[in-house]
């Protein structure tokens, strides 16, 4: 069940500091591939260390986790993707391009449940 106030809060955040990104679904096997794209607005956050992973082998889990270079954290609205007819759900290995910087990242994790109350999808992507 989506909460209108929560969704509105996310929309305000997107309006204030959202960035244009292009989500891509690549299908087929190289060289015979097809791409379907959808341009939406997303909240883009910088990298954060993964506290659930060990940074180096042989050390305890309490050590700070590994940081993936060029990793980004995104929040997009499911409605925006649905309006652009992007085939949901988002999947690992979908691509995301940050339009302003032309960075092309590979989606590593998708969490559509955490922010479901606002109709938002959280995803983590890192550069190739």
């Amino acid at each position: 069940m989506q909460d209108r106030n929560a969704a509105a809060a996310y929309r305000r955040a997107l309006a204030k500091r959202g960035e244009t990104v292009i989500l891509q679904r690549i299908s087929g096997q190289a060289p015979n591939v097809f791409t379907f794209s959808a341009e939406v607005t997303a909240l883009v956050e910088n990298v954060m260390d993964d506290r659930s992973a060990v940074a180096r082998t042989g050390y305890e889990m309490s050590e700070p986790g590994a940081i993936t270079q060029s990793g980004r954290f995104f929040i997009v609205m499911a409605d925006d993707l649905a309006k652009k007819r992007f085939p949901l759900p988002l999947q690992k290995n979908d691509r995301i391009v940050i339009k302003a910087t032309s960075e092309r990242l590979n989606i590593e994790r998708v969490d559509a449940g955490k922010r479901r109350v606002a109709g938002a999808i959280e995803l983590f992507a890192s550069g190739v």
Partner: protein
Amino acid sequence: MDNPGSFQLGVAGAAFQITSPGTLTGDTLCNIDGARALSLQASFKCGSGNGQGSLKAYVQTTLDQGQSWTDIACFTFAEASATKVVNLSGLTPQTSPLTPTQAALGDNTCVDGLIGSALRAVVVVEAGSAYQNSALNITVQIR
């Protein structure tokens, strides 16, 4: 139409992977009520075959909310990469009753004037085909 734009008629959110003989039924593209025209593109990228491959891609629409489907376009391909496009209008009069077909429309023909509430693609890979690393992408621009 309230939400015009470019859409993909695929299966499981991706383009059709063409391999062995059989029928692949694509995802349903819903909520296109009010669509006046469709520009369809079928793009086939062929990796390799056995010299006997052929496939037919039918684009279908429904006029009874999905209870039955009617062919509105048929694209045929052999074992060469190719792209085919058509444009269909929902305002073209069809004053003589037609008998709808389901995955049986004539090769590379269309039925103009029928745009229902949803679209889908059905791909039939003919018997004797053996494609490898091949894919078919059908996109539609809806207005």
